[in-house]
C-alpha cells in the first residue's frame, strides 16, 4: 500500500472531482487585446515598474524590477504600448500597481538567449536564468524559485519533487501540460536537479490522471535519476507538506522549511518554465490556465500573464447562465473575485465560474462536536477548538492550539455538517497571531 498522510477528503468524488468538464480540452493559445500585469504577483515585495505610460515594450522585456530578497522581475507578456501604470483592484484587499499594455498583435520579442543545454549549463547559470526569467511557484504560492534553489549554507537538498498531483477539484491545466508537454517538465526537473546538486527526482501524479503517468514515464525513461510516482486521489495530496511526507516518509518539523528534510518541491508548470528559461532563454510571461465551471466551453488555455478573467471566460465561450461567483484557483483554496476584471497571474492555475445554484451558501449552525474536522485535518489540528478561540478573540489560546500550523487547505469547513466557517476563523487567528508577533 502506498504511504499516505493523515486525514484528507475526496471532494466531488462521484463526478471525478469535476475535472472531466475540461480535462479533455487540448491546450489552445489565447492572445488578448490588452493585458493588465500586476507588479506583485509573487510572494515578497512588489516589483518597481520601469516603464511609463506611452512606452513601446517588446514581448519578454523587463517592465518591473525586483525588490528585496524575495523579489522577482516582471516581463511584458505582449508587444505593444503601455497605456497605464496605475493601481487596479485585483484579489487583495486594496488596489495593486499594474502595468497595462495594449497588444499590437506583432509579438515582437526581445532577443532570447539560452543559457545552454541540460548537459552544458552550470548550476549557477541555471539559478541565474531562473531569477532573470522571473519564475515563482506556479502552483499557487508564488514563492520565488531562484530563492528556493539557492540552498542555504549547511543544508543539503536530497530530493527534488515535481508536484503533478493537481488535487484541487475542477483544475486540469497541470493535467494537460503533463499530457501534452511532458518533455518540458522532464528537462525542467533535470535542470532543477543539476542546480540543486541532487541525484534523485520524483514526479508525483494523482491516480486520477493515468494518462499523465504514461506520458511522463515515456518522457523520463532515459533518466534513471527520475522516478514517476502515482499517488492516491485524495485532497490535499498536492499540499507541499503532505507530498513530502508521502514521497519521503519524513515530516517537515514545525516552523521549518522543506529543505530541512532535504526536499525541494516545484509545481509541474514551474519545472516547465525553468526549462524554457534555461534552454530557450524565455522569461515567464505565459502559462497554462483552466477556465471551467459555468462557462460554455470549459477549456485549458495557454494564456499571457495579465490576461483579464473576462477575456479568458469569453474565449471559453462566455458565461453559461448568470455568473454568481468567479473563483481564482480551485474551489478548496481559491479566491472569490470582486469582478471579472482581475488578471491571470504567474500562479493563477484556474478560473472557476459558479452560477447561482453552485454559489449557494448555507447558514452557519452550532458545532455538534461530531469530530469530522478533527479527523479530516491533514495537519492534526482541532479546527472546532480554534474557531471557538477565534470567536472569543482568545488569540493566545488559538496559538496554543497550533493555529499557525494550518495550511488553509479548507478541509475543515468543507467537512463540517453545521457549515461552520472554520478555515476562515483559523486564517483570522493566524493573522492576529502574526500581527501580535510583529509588535
Amino acid at each position, binding site marked *: 500500500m502506498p504511504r499516505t498522510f493523515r486525514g484528507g477528503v475526496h471532494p466531488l468524488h462521484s463526478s471525478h472531482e469535476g475535472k472531466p468538464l475540461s480535462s479533455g480540452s487540448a491546450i489552445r493559445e489565447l492572445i488578448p487585446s490588452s493585458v493588465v500585469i500586476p507588479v506583485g504577483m509573487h510572494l515578497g515585495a512588489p516589483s518597481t515598474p520601469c516603464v511609463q505610460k506611452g512606452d513601446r515594450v517588446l514581448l519578454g522585456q523587463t517592465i518591473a524590477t525586483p525588490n528585496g530578497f524575495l523579489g522577482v522581475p516582471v516581463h511584458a507578456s505582449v508587444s505593444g504600448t503601455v497605456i497605464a501604470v496605475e493601481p487596479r483592484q485585483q484579489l487583495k484587499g486594496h488596489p495593486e500597481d499594474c502595468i497595462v499594455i495594449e497588444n499590437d498583435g506583432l509579438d515582437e520579442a526581445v532577443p532570447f538567449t539560452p543559457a545552454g543545454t541540460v548537459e552544458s549549463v552550470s548550476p549557477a547559470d541555471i539559478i541565474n536564468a531562473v531569477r532573470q526569467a522571473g519564475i515563482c511557484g506556479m502552483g499557487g504560492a508564488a514563492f520565488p524559485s531562484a530563492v528556493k534553489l539557492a540552498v542555504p549554507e549547511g543544508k543539503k537538498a536530497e530530493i527534488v519533487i515535481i508536484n503533478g498531483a493537481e488535487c484541487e477539484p475542477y483544475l486540469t491545466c497541470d493535467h494537460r501540460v503533463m499530457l501534452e508537454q511532458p518533455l518540458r517538465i522532464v528537462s525542467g526537473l533535470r535542470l532543477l536537479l543539476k542546480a540543486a546538486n541532487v541525484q534523485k527526482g520524483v514526479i508525483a501524479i494523482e491516480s486520477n490522471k493515468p494518462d499523465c503517468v504514461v506520458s511522463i514515464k515515456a518522457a523520463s525513461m532515459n533518466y534513471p535519476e527520475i522516478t514517476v510516482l502515482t499517488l492516491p486521489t485524495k485532497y490535499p495530496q498536492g499540499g507541499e507538506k503532505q507530498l513530502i511526507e508521502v514521497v519521503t516518509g519524513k515530516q517537515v518539523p*514545525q516552523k521549518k522549511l522543506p529543505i530541512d528534510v532535504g526536499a525541494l518541491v516545484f509545481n509541474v508548470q514551474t519545472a516547465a518554465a525553468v526549462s524554457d528559461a534555461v534552454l530557450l532563454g524565455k522569461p515567464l510571461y505565459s502559462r497554462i490556465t483552466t477556465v471551467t465551471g459555468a462557462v460554455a466551453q470549459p477549456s485549458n488555455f495557454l494564456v499571457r500573464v495579465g490576461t483579464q478573467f473576462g477575456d479568458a471566460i469569453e474565449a471559453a465561450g462566455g458565461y453559461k447562465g448568470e455568473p454568481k461567483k468567479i473563483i481564482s484557483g480551485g474551489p478548496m483554496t481559491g479566491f472569490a473575485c470582486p469582478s471579472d476584471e482581475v488578471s491571470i497571474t504567474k500562479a493563477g492555475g484556474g478560473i472557476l465560474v459558479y452560477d447561482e445554484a453552485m454559489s449557494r451558501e*448555507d447558514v452557519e449552525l452550532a458545532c455538534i462536536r461530531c469530530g469530522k474536522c478533527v479527523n479530516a485535518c491533514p495537519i492534526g489540528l482541532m479546527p472546532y477548538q480554534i474557531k471557538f478561540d477565534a470567536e472569543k478573540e482568545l488569540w493566545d489560546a488559538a496559538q496554543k492550539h497550533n493555529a499557525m500550523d494550518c495550511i488553509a487547505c479548507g478541509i475543515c469547513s468543507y467537512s463540517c455538517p453545521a457549515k461552520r466557517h472554520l478555515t476562515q476563523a483559523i486564517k483570522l487567528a493566524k493573522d492576529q497571531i502574526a500581527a501580535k508577533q510583529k509588535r
Partner: protein
Amino acid sequence: MKLLVSPAPHIKAPVSTQGIMAVVIAALMPCVIAATWIFGLNVLLLCAISVASCVVFELLSELIAKRRLTVSDLSAVVTGLILALNLPPTASWWMVVVGSAVAILLVKQLFGGIGCNFLNPALTARAILLVSWPARMNNFVLDGVSQATPLASSGAVSSASVVPATTLDLFIGNIPGSMGEVCKIAILLGLVLLLVTRVVSWHVPLSFIASFMLFAWIFGYDPLRAVLSGGVLFGAVFMATDYVTNPMTRKGQLVFGVGCGLLVAVIRRFGTYPEGVTYAILIMNIFTPLIDRFMRPRVYGEVKNHA
C-alpha cells in the same frame, strides 16, 4: 455584474446536521418497531408523546430566550425517541413529559442549546426519572405479567419461581425491559445503518462492548449473556455515540468506550443497581472534556519540547 465574494472553500461536503439526525432517527426505527411488536401499540403512543413534548419544549425555550429556532435540525426528535425508548413500556404519559422537560430544558437549552450540553439529555432525564420514581421505572411487563428484568432476576434476590430467559430470548427481545433495549437484532440493524452511512464510527460502540464483555468475564459473568442483558447494546450504539457528549478524537473515543464498558461492569458487579449503563455513560460524559484535553492528535511535524 454582481458577484458573491466569500472565503474558501467554495464547496462543502453533502452532509448536514439535519441529515445526520435523520439517519439516527432512521436507525432507531427498528427498535421502535420491535418494541411495538413486543409490548404493543402503547410504545408508539409513548414515543409520539416524547417526541412531541421534546420538540415543543425546544421551540418554547428558544422563543422565550429569543434564540434561533433549531427544531428543524431534528435533534429534539432524536432526544425524544431515545428518551422514550429508555423507559419501561408501562411508563405514564406524564413521566414522559417530565423526562422531556429535563432533557430539553434543563440539560440542553439551559446550557446553550445543541452542542453545548455536557451530559446526554435523554440519559440524564432517565436518571432523574429513575431516582424520582424508582418503582414506576422498574415496572416491567411482558405478556401482561409484571416481571423483573433478566438482570434483576439474576441477582442474589431473584425468586426461584422466575424461569431464566434463554440466550435466544435475550437476543430477539422476548424479555422484560426498557422499550428500546430488549431487541438486540433491532439495535444491531440500527448500528449497521449508522456505520454504513458513517454517521458513527466503530470506535465507541466496539470499545464499549468489547471492554464490557472483557470485564464482565473477569467478574465471573457469562460475557455473551451479560452483553445481551440490560441496556449495554442500546447504550453503546445510540447513547455513548452522541457526538456532543463523547470525545472528538478517535483515540479519545476509544478511551471513552473502554471507560463506559468498565463502569457498567463495575456497577453491575458491585453496585446496588442491577443495571449501570445510564450512570456509566453519564460519568464518562463528565470525563469527556478531560479526555479531549489530553487525547489530541499529533500535529504534523510536531517537535517535542524538552526545554
